[in-house]
């Protein structure tokens, strides 16, 4: 059963292609930075507008669909802007606009080399991300997912230092292994279910595939998407990838790339395996177990990181698993909360990374222990940092509160007290690793004799925008909540999807 009707439209395709075209233009105008940056900004704005145009349809139960051509007999390269896809595309494309402005400020202020390659790769990454969001079937998803893996590589090795190259190798090793396993899982799904199409409620129901087969496919696919989602023990590449320039860490390693993994988990749970099978075969319990462990362990590791970006990276690993955990709960509030956390964590974490980048560009400081008194030098930056940190710890009215509240509600609906404990404990740990930074910045005297300066306006304005956005989404979560509800309704009302039962057999 599909709770929305589809209509043919090339809009999703245009949304994917606009940044791919921009990448070509960026490379072609590499010698003229002003023109080159115009392409980035124009593509970002256009892409956002295109995605925005798909929102009313998604809310009204109408999904734009474009079927291109067969890429394997019986499987087409097809894009569909269903509510979940629009949700993710909206987050990624919206934040790309802000990140583009910030990026331009960052690479110019930091005097980075290879700027053309940087902006071009960034644009390709966004194309792949929107492709992941709008994929209508598992093979299309795999195509864009692998493209994303690859397009991120030039950004990870951007600095071309031995350290960056090592991080790049590590990243490739993780990403390509994941891609290989996802390929096997996709082929196996085709063999077992006879279709690869994403359908709310899953495609395995009634396919006659045995439980052992489905479990094996699930594990393969989970590793495939789990690497990008940073589910422990598959998270190792993410902290290393922090060697990339900060805007990359901000948009890709807090939003686009890692959330493609999380998005993949939601797709698998809701649209391939379906809530019923997840529960009956004990798959949800496995997923929840790994996610819960990741939430706690990542927070504990984050406590011990002195490098600011690494601390943020481990925090990201933890928060990604909030979303996975929420999806594994299979309850209405849990899934809605998970999706809301996908957008909320994005705005908050991007704020924090932007701040880390601003501190690096202005003061050349990378470590938490050097941040004494920074709040006086960079009041705007650190103010925004504080807002986002409060939000991630779950303090209202920042948006982190809303999603965490829904997630907690979801654990109660599912009757999972252990998950509730994990979430509450993680809130405390978040406070424990973020508040010392705020404390150092504002309440300790600076050790530097020379006063530092606030970052340039092209960086501070985006920081302010995302911080304000975080608060605004906390006060008015309606748009995303409605989209999330549309997804939840479709998934949980799928083939026999019960609404309130708990995890496990």
């Amino acid at each position, binding site marked *: 059963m599909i709770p929305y009707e589809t209509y043919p439209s090339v809009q999703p395709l245009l949304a994917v292609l606009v940044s791919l075209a921009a990448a070509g233009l960026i490379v072609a105008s590499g010698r003229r930075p002003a023109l080159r940056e115009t392409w980035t900004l124009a593509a970002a704005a256009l892409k956002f507008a295109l995605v925005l145009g798909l929102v009313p349809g998604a809310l009204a139960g109408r999904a734009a669909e474009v079927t291109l051509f*067969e890429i394997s007999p019986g499987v087409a390269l097809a894009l569909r802007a269903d509510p979940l896809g629009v949700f993710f595309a909206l987050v990624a494309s919206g934040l790309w606009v802000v990140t583009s402005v910030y990026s331009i400020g960052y690479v110019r202020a930091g005097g980075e080399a290879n700027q053309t390659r940087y902006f071009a790769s960034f644009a390709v990454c966004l194309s792949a991300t929107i492709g992941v969001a709008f994929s209508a079937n598992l093979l299309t998803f795999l195509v864009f997912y*692998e493209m994303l893996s690859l397009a991120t590589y030039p950004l990870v090795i951007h600095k071309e230092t031995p350290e960056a*190259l090592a991080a790049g*190798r590590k990243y490739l090793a993780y990403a390509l292994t994941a*891609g*290989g396993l996802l*390929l096997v899982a996709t082929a196996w799904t085709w*063999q077992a279910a006879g279709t690869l199409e994403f359908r709310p409620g899953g495609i395995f129901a009634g396919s006659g595939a045995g439980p052992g087969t489905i479990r094996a496919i699930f594990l393969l696919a989970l590793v495939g998407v789990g690497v990008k989602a940073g589910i422990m023990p598959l998270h190792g590449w993410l902290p290393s990838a922090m060697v990339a320039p900060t805007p990359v860490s901000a948009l890709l390693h807090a939003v686009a790339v890692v959330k493609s993994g999380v998005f993949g988990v939601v797709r698998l749970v809701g649209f391939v395996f379906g809530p019923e099978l997840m529960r009956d075969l004990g798959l949800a319990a496995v997923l929840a177990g790994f996610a819960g462990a990741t939430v706690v362990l990542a927070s504990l590791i984050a406590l011990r990181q002195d490098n600011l970006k690494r601390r943020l990276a481990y925090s990201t690993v933890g928060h990604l698993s909030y979303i996975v955990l929420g999806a594994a709960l299979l309850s209405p509030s849990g899934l809605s909360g998970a999706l809301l956390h996908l957008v909320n964590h994005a705005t908050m974490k991007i704020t924090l990374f932007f701040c880390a980048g601003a501190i690096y560009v202005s003061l050349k400081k990378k470590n938490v222990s050097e941040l004494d008194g920074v709040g006086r030098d960079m009041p705007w930056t650190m103010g925004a940092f504080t807002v986002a940190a409060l939000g991630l710890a779950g303090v209202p009215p920042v948006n982190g509160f809303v999603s965490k509240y829904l997630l907690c509600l979801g654990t109660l609906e599912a009757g999972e007290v252990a998950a509730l404990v994990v979430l509450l404990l993680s809130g405390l740990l978040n406070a424990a690793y973020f508040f010392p930074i705020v404390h150092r910045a504002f309440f300790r005297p600076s050790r530097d004799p020379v006063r530092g300066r606030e970052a340039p306006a092209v960086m501070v304005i985006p920081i302010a925008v995302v911080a304000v956005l975080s608060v605004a989404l906390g006060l008015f979560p309606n748009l995303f909540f409605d989209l999330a509800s549309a997804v939840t309704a479709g998934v949980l009302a799928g083939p026999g999807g019960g609404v309130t039962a708990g995890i496990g057999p």
Partner: protein
Amino acid sequence: MTAANLPALIPLAYLVTALLIQLAGAWRRSLAPTLAVTGASAGAVLALAGLVRVAASGPLSYELGGWPPPVGIEFVLDGLSAFMVAVVTVVGLVALVHGGRTTATEIPGRVVPFLSASMIFLTGLTGMVLTGDLFNLYVFLEISSLAAYALLAVGSRQAPLSTFRYLTMGTAGASFYLFGLAFLYLEAGTLNMADLGRILSLVESHAPVIMGLTFMGVGMALKMALFPLHGWLPDAYTDASSAGTSLVAPLGTKVAAYVLLRLFFYVLEPEYARGLPLLTAVGYLGIAGVVWGSVMAILQPELKRMLAYSSVSQVGYIAAGIGLASPLGFIAAVLHILNHAFMKACLFLVAGSLRLRRGHSHIPRFDRSLRRAMPWSMAAFALAALSMIGIPPTAGFFSKWYLALAALEQANWVLLAALVASSLLNAVYFFRVLERMYLVPAPEGVGTAPAAIEPGEVPASMLVPTLVLAGGLLVLGLGNAWLVTHLIRPMLPAGL
């Protein structure tokens, strides 16, 4: 000239050109490259016309000298041979266009015989593909092999020695084939493929048939460098001239694989072939080759040698597809023959371009100045490398996809594991090269040492063929479903 003559015209075009090159070359040497490209173009046009014709209105058969088969020799253009001959002629043409410049630099003075030999090589390959007679196939096999020895022996100082090893092994392979064929002939009394297929199913004593098939299989395994019979390949490919390698490497082994396909699924009943332990052995040796070739490729410091080992691994994919003996396995094998011919040709062309511009293709001496000096060649190399690793939407990804589907169908976990492992190993050895080409700075002080012969991108006569192949990888990747539905599925042998 009617369409019915097409099967014979294709090898003939090359044979005539081979003679013309010798004659014209004696008069004016500069005519030879133009003639070679013209002849190869004619072959390619004829082959493509044949492909279209067969797809539209079914197989064509040409009776040589008007003698009807099974006594006379027939040339058959059916789905599989039309497809294969199109691959051989097109890739051969592209390699020859690119080779115009490298032959002039690397082997001056031997251009005319080289080009003449390459025409004979293509005569042999197209003949092997088109003939409908197993003994005639042996004749063409020897023609192509002798030409290949000549092509590969011209190169570095070690080339004659390496080629001598190839000659020994290759002759052994051809003899095995002939020996095996004798068994079949004794049992069935015919050499015509279609006729033999009909009679073999009536033969009562299976031992001689299996004996014969095994000998023929081993012979072809030698020619296609199937693990562990690949020993001749790395040296022969590495020491030859760039043009020689880029002509022989993408095509020679593929045609041997074609012979296996023809033998197991067309001459024999697929049902019968499926029961042969020989076929299973081919499949598992292929899997072993996939892994072994990749591991050896990682260890090679010389680009051409690395690519040669990579060929051993990629031939393994084809053999694994054959070994599965299922429609999906067949599709995977045939598609990979095409895809790999394109990728490997593209990579060898870039290796040739590097030798022209830098005078070497030694990986540890690559540095990031290449990405500025030869941006297009490097981009083509990168794209072909991604295809070898199997990143969508390049062609290589879809070879893996069909092979994975085929392996899952039969629950062949070993092959699946090898597939995943091999794409990782491919990534290791290709990113090792790409990292150097794009990222690693030149060592201080040695920057302008004897290396750079001529700076800058290669001339258009070399760049265009490279880019055509690289672009082709995207086209083949995105159009794979079309290829499978319209070309490969219709050629599936009855009963597979």
